[in-house]
């Protein structure tokens, strides 16, 4: 079996599993956020007619998509979540502390675990060698009740990445390039396994960027084999007692793709599909109205550090507004202590409370008609961040920072005025 099949088998009554097989699996955690939890609460109470979650330590709620509460309806749904959490005695409830996936990675995920979340970007946890996938509110309500769920064992694809990372080229550029090649349906229902020396060279933060966007190609799971970097991350986080799975000698992958990052340029995904990907040169000079640095894709300390290094001592252009949202409270504090928040604010950027922010269109940074956003987030769907007549371009933190200074899409490799 390959490592995906082995982790699934270990969570099921089966000793061997194969792609296409439908199995019932036991879950290590079930996460829901404020875009999905209230519907799950209704289903849990009114349709499943149950009054106890399977384990109040394993059901995790996060308020992040509409925080600080952005409407009366959002405030009411937050209160519904708080009441449910209290009634059920849930141990982990995060209220404006950051994006759900960042918090899960900082505080909960262990290598080898199997996790379901009511959010499509739950596949992020593959960066630590956990299998995690997004599901809807009914599946999550069933999982809250039973601690188990049905899954189809996916085919696995292996993407091997070699080469030396060029200056100003990052994990975001690689995953955009890969999605451009795979297309937005190219990995539907599959597990995407990333390996090779250029992946091993990445920090967990950057591995998260890659795994986060696997869903944009339709994937069910993303996975990076745990290594010394993973071990160091877990040790620093103070979480131990996990099991690392590996491929058997006869491990089978449906398809293998190879990439070399040595000649990779910064990438841009242009409206309105994530697989509309080109080298940055195609779009250099495109005038921007708003920029966003944040999200579960690129709102971590490493991302903020890259952007701050470019912005230090400079001002953003007069034609743009620039919103910086740290992905969690811990990231925010770390950035504050390192002086990054001062750099952002002195450059003219706004710094907002941790959360999904302008990635989602549920709180700040909403776009008006005809406006153009350049963002480190993961989706550029039409109307996602406001007006259906706005445009969203996706890029790395380095591209966003350089472009904020020039007021137009700018190559960080020497494109700064």
């Amino acid at each position: 079996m390959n490592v995906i099949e082995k982790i699934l088998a270990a969570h099921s009554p089966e000793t061997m599993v194969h792609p296409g097989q439908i199995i019932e699996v036991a879950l290590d955690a079930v996460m829901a956020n404020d875009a999905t939890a209230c519907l799950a609460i209704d289903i849990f109470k009114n349709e499943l007619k149950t009054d106890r979650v399977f384990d109040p330590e394993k059901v995790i709620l996060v308020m992040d998509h509409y925080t600080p509460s952005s409407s009366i309806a959002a405030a009411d749904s937050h209160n519904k979540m708080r009441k449910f959490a209290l009634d059920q005695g849930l141990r982990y409830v995060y209220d404006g502390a950051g994006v759900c996936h960042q918090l899960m990675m900082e505080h909960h995920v262990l290598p080898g675990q199997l996790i379901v979340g009511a959010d499509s970007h739950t596949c992020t946890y593959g960066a630590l060698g956990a299998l995690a996938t997004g599901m809807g509110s009914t599946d999550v309500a069933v999982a809250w009740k039973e601690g188990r769920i049905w899954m189809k064992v996916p085919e696995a694809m292996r993407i091997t990445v070699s080469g030396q990372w060029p200056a100003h080229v990052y994990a975001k550029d690689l995953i955009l390039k890969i999605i451009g090649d795979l297309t937005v349906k190219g990995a539907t229902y599959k597990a995407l396994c990333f390996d090779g020396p250029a992946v091993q060279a990445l920090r967990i933060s950057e591995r998260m960027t890659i795994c986060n966007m696997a869903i944009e190609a339709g994937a069910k799971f993303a996975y990076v084999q745990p290594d010394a970097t993973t071990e160091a991350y877990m040790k620093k986080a103070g979480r131990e007692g996990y099991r690392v799975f590996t491929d058997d000698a006869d491990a089978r992958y449906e398809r293998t793709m190879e990439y070399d990052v040595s000649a990779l340029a910064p990438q841009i995904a242009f409206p309105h599909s994530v697989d509309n990907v080109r080298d940055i040169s195609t779009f250099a000079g495109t005038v921007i109205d708003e920029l966003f640095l944040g999200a579960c894709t690129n709102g971590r300390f490493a991302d903020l550090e890259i952007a701050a290094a470019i912005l230090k001592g400079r001002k953003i252009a007069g034609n743009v507004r620039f919103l910086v949202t740290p992905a969690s409270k811990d990231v925010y504090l770390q950035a504050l202590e390192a002086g990054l928040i001062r750099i952002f604010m002195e450059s003219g950027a706004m710094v907002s409370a941790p959360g999904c922010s302008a990635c989602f269109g549920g709180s700040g940074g909403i776009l008006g008609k005809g406006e153009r956003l350049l963002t480190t987030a993961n989706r550029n769907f039409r109307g996602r961040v406001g007006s259906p007549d706005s445009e969203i371009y996706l890029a790395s933190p380095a591209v966003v920072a350089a472009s904020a200074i020039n007021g137009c899409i700018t190559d960080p490799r020497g494109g700064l005025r």
Partner: protein
Amino acid sequence: MIEGKAIIFGNNIDTDQILGAHHLVLPTIGEMAGYTFEHHAHFTSGFAKGDILVAGDNFGCGSSREQAAAVLKERGVAAVIARGFARIFFRNAINLGLQLIVCPEASEIAAKDKLTITAEKIRNETTGKEYAREPLPPFVAGILKSGGIIPYLQKNR
């Protein structure tokens, strides 16, 4: 058997288009349903209860929001025919008992064509053409036959 008229969509219809982010916090699916495909004029002005949505590849891609499948059911969408569905939307729709039909020839169907769907095939009453539908895996078909995952679990646990 399902009968209805076709409302056509293209490839990669994402769940943000089906139901925008700022409507997800409304208290009930009934209140959200009024915003279904709010920026698609051919749906908002042309859809009637019992119509069949016909789309290309990867219908329902993007967010895990089950509300997207729920508002389609709430509005009375009789079935969604597509060349393919995104994974999370597929589960959500089946869980709610919304009829999803995979049909490689979906793009041959035109706006307002009258369709009849049986267990074996889709018949286009307007053109007289018939198309094969791909069978669902038996386990998934069983959930749909029960009317969704909750009635299925009530019957099978």
